[in-house]
């Protein structure tokens, strides 16, 4: 499929560049609908890669790139079922999500995340699959999972470890604090910080530049530079499922879902 218009995401191939847009109100919470559509995208990647050289992932929503996993859906699906069934559902979702994210990570396309606003949790994990991150000054990055009694489950830790020093990974994970784009550039994750509203334009300019290089060389370089940490990704799924059985998770999810506080997104 060269183009697709879904309820959570859409994509289009134009001039050798695939643009994948996230557009599920209010904050691109990634739930079962987004996953089903992302699986369609992953299944189309091979075909798209035959004519495209780059992929840009961005959000059309003003609030930002993505708030991460749809916690309300996750909480609702975990209610009124036996714990064993809950874990089966969670593991199935994780396996499917990892398959999509691994496909983007390993894609022969050079991938660019064009970021603004919130880049939280699963949204951050999606961005981490990309080869380059271009963020505008409003972008804010966070892994708030620990306050839910969880760790990031969509490859966050292995991919952060691949790209960053361990001390920065610990800071992000263990404090759950959010970092602005300039800080995330300073630690080496974001390649360019641009003015507000400019990340997609700069991503397009970067994609055009990438198109000038020999495709086979670029793909070879990417494969050499960016190994996929498959073993750790698998360990992460097991750890996440193990943690999900703890009462702290149900309590953390309930607190978030039922919160009427003005600050539910502040760790």
């Amino acid at each position: 499929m060269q183009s697709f218009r879904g309820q959570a995401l859409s994509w289009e191939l134009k001039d050798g560049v695939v643009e994948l847009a996230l557009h599920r109100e209010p904050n691109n919470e990634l739930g079962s609908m987004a996953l089903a559509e992302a699986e369609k995208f992953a299944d189309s990647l091979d075909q798209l890669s035959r004519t495209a050289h780059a992929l840009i992932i961005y959000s059309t929503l003003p609030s930002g790139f993505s708030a991460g996993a749809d916690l309300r859906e996750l909480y609702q699906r975990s209610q009124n079922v036996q714990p064993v069934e809950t874990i089966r559902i969670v593991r199935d979702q994780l396996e499917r999500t990892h398959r999509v994210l691994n496909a983007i990570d390993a894609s022969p396309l050079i991938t660019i995340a064009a970021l603004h606003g919130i880049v939280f949790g699963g949204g951050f994990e999606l961005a981490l699959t990309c080869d380059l991150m271009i963020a505008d000054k409003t972008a804010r990055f966070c892994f708030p999972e620990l306050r839910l009694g969880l760790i990031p489950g969509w490859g966050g830790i292995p991919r952060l470890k691949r790209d960053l020093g361990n001390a920065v990974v610990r800071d992000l994970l263990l404090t759950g604090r959010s970092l602005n784009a300039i800080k995330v550039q300073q630690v080496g994750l974001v390649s360019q910080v641009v003015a507000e509203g400019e990340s997609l334009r700069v991503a397009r300019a970067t994609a055009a530049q990438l198109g000038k290089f020999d495709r086979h060389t670029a793909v070879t370089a990417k494969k050499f530079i960016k190994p996929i940490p498959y073993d750790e990704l698998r360990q992460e799924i097991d750890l996440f499922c193990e943690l999900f059985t703890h009462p702290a998770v149900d309590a953390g999810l309930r607190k978030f879902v039922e919160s009427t506080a003005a600050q539910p997104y502040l760790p």
Partner: protein
Amino acid sequence: MPNPDQTLTEILNLAAAHFKVSREKLTPDDDFFKTLGIDSLQTLDLLTRLEHHFHIELPDYELQGVSDFRTLADRIQARL
């Protein structure tokens, strides 16, 4: 380095301009969630803008329980 009063004034000016609220309506002890009509995501947006403006890092957990401009200014001043 701005003194505490200057810091507070700069925060009020920035918040009024960004959220398009009359500057005269904002006072140091206002609950900024109510006065600005913002939620937690917009608070993070404000935090980002304040970090860039003052060239500081302010962990968001330091904002837990903070809802008035004066206390926010104290937190920022401690990082200057």
